[in-house]
């Protein structure tokens, strides 16, 4: 039975009001926490960090010069291989030209890391800029971009890359660093479109939102709107796209070098090691298997990171 009591005093009792509200945090901090909980992604990060470290310190950790040929000492087995052919001075064995495989593996990480990150950065800059302008300006500019990209969008990147690398190998640019610069350019040229389209899509949906209208009302210039408002909000899917682009580029290099149109020997890359090793596959599998493991591990690492980022930034995306 209720009793008449005095009216309530004016104490604060915010704990009674919706407690769940208090759990909202900054979105990026939230995403980072989610990422941290993802064990696979964390393992991936460690592996990538390790790879970067190896790439950076290659000169000091590699036991030999990767270009050092000793043809007489070729096709040595690694320590765990066919004991008849093992040369203890080369724990991972030697390749067809007598070069130390371990050192070549270590130096190859440089190429892979570079080919992963550098074009990704360039593609990001170009793609985002163009995509933003096209999306924000709309109208003719947008239309032209879409028509042009529609035509080639479905075409496999690797095919274009093969053609570019083949044709321009002997040009001046193609000669630099065994074709690395050419590959950067080729990848950038072929891949900026995807980033531009994604950015454009994001901008199109964002620019109708009220906060953009509000910014315009306060006199913000288009440039300011694009950089301070549109860009941060469009960022999440772009990050995920870039995260997946990096391993894709590493894969391109591996594939191209494997086919013989990538980075030219004697520069060591995992892909070209595969190419060379494949020719002697029946004699000894290790020159092929070892770079295969390296490629697989780095690819898995990046994929886990990409998946983790995607889950962290928008758990609704189930792909």
């Amino acid at each position, binding site marked *: 039975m209720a009793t*008449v009591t005095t009216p309530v005093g004016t104490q604060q009792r915010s704990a009674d009001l919706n407690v769940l*509200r208090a759990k909202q945090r900054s979105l990026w901090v939230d995403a980072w926490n989610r990422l941290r909980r993802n064990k696979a992604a964390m393992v991936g990060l460690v592996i990538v960090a390790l790879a970067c470290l190896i790439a950076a310190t290659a000169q000091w950790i590699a036991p030999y010069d990767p270009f050092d040929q000793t043809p007489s000492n070729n096709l040595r087995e690694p320590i765990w291989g066919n004991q008849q052919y093992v040369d203890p001075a080369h724990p991972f064995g030697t390749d067809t030209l007598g070069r130390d495989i371990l050192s070549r593996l270590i130096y190859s990480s440089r190429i892979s890391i570079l080919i992963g990150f550098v074009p990704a950065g360039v593609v990001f800059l170009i793609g985002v800029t163009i995509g933003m302008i096209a999306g924000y300006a709309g109208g003719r500019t947008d239309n032209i971009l879409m028509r042009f990209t529609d035509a080639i969008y479905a075409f496999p990147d690797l095919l274009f890359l093969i053609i570019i690398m083949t044709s321009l190998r002997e040009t001046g640019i193609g000669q630099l660093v065994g074709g690395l610069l050419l590959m950067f350019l080729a990848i950038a040229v072929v891949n900026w479109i995807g980033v531009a389209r994604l950015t454009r899509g*994001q901008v199109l949906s964002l620019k109708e939102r009220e906060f953009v209208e509000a910014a315009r009302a306060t006199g913000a210039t288009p440039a300011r709107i694009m950089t301070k408002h549109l860009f941060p909000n469009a960022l999440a899917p772009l990050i995920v796209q870039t995260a997946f682009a990096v391993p894709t580029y590493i894969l391109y290099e591996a594939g191209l070098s494997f086919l013989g149109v990538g980075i030219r020997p004697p520069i060591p890359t995992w892909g070209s090691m595969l190419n060379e090793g494949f020719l002697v596959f029946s004699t000894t599998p290790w020159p092929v298997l070892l770079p295969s493991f390296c490629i697989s591990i780095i690819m898995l690492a990046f994929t886990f990171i990409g998946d983790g980022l995607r889950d962290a930034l928008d758990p609704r*995306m189930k792909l």
Partner: protein
Amino acid sequence: MAQNLLEVQDLYTQFFTRDGVVRAVDGVSFHVEAGETLGIVGESGCGKSVTALSLMRLIPQPPGKIVKGSIMFDGADVLKMDDDEVRGIRGNNIAMIFQDPMTSLNPVLTISRQISEALELHLKMDKSEARKRTIELLDLVGIPSAKKRADDYPHQFSGGMRQRVMIAMALSCNPKLILADEPTTALDVTIQAQILDLLKNLAREFRTAFILITHDLGVVAGMTQRIHVMYGGKIVEKADTAELFANPKMPYTWGLLRSIPRLDEKRKAKLVPIEGLPPDLIAPPPGCRFEPRCQYRRDICHEKEPPLEHIPNSKPDHEARCWGTQEGGWLVDTDWRKEIGDMAVLEVIKQEVAQLPPEPKPGDVPPPPAAI
């Protein structure tokens, strides 16, 4: 006395989430007689939809679970039935109309197929019988050129038409009870009126019982015989419709009625909204759930939860869950239209809300990305 068509006793439905157990329906009891329309009113998150889904055992099993209670439909306890029996009832004796007809209809199947499904399943009709009946039903709910339209797809219909299709689907096997969950919320106001009229006529013609679930008091006013008000997973007031509007006995209901603009009010009269936010259903407060937002509150409201009981100065089956309006309470003689309660408390509530961390603005949330 004739047995009630539906008798719900002590229903508890909970959701087991990573953040805790959400007590969505926390001890709900009510009944529905054959042929009557009951309105369940409350704001989003109060548990009204979950109640309806529980009646048909449509609660997704993880993470949800009906943990306690009984649902007697036509003398049998739905909660004790096995899966096949429940499926026999669904669409057959009890049917449901959902809120958003666009997403509630399968976009890749014709509406004829979607309506015939239930007919073929429950009434064992063959294809031609089912088709005939389907066209009859479409006619009944007011779809013009029913015969031609039967083979169309949902996206070829307007919102109001789609909802009519859903109603036809619900009616198809002549159910004794139809649960209508916010049937008009997704529609334009003019279409709302049409749909509500349709439902009323159908209820009368076929003597179907309805449970009409909505947040809109205006919708239930013309449609129902009785109304239950829900808040925080519990029923907080039960009354006949006219009685509820004329003589509400719970501050939450007063709040609801005050927030409706009325044509007959003076222009200067201010709308008094209910300040504050709905309660946290994972850790509900020990006292009255509405207390944090109530400007009539007293200490006892914070300490003990009031039971749902009959209240003085009202019709015999009028119940409310409020210490203040119950026997001996301080609100027994209050004229809610004139006395808006302690304004100081209102200010405190407003301040408490202002103290909370800000909700993320639309600009802060990254929009869902396009397919990569």
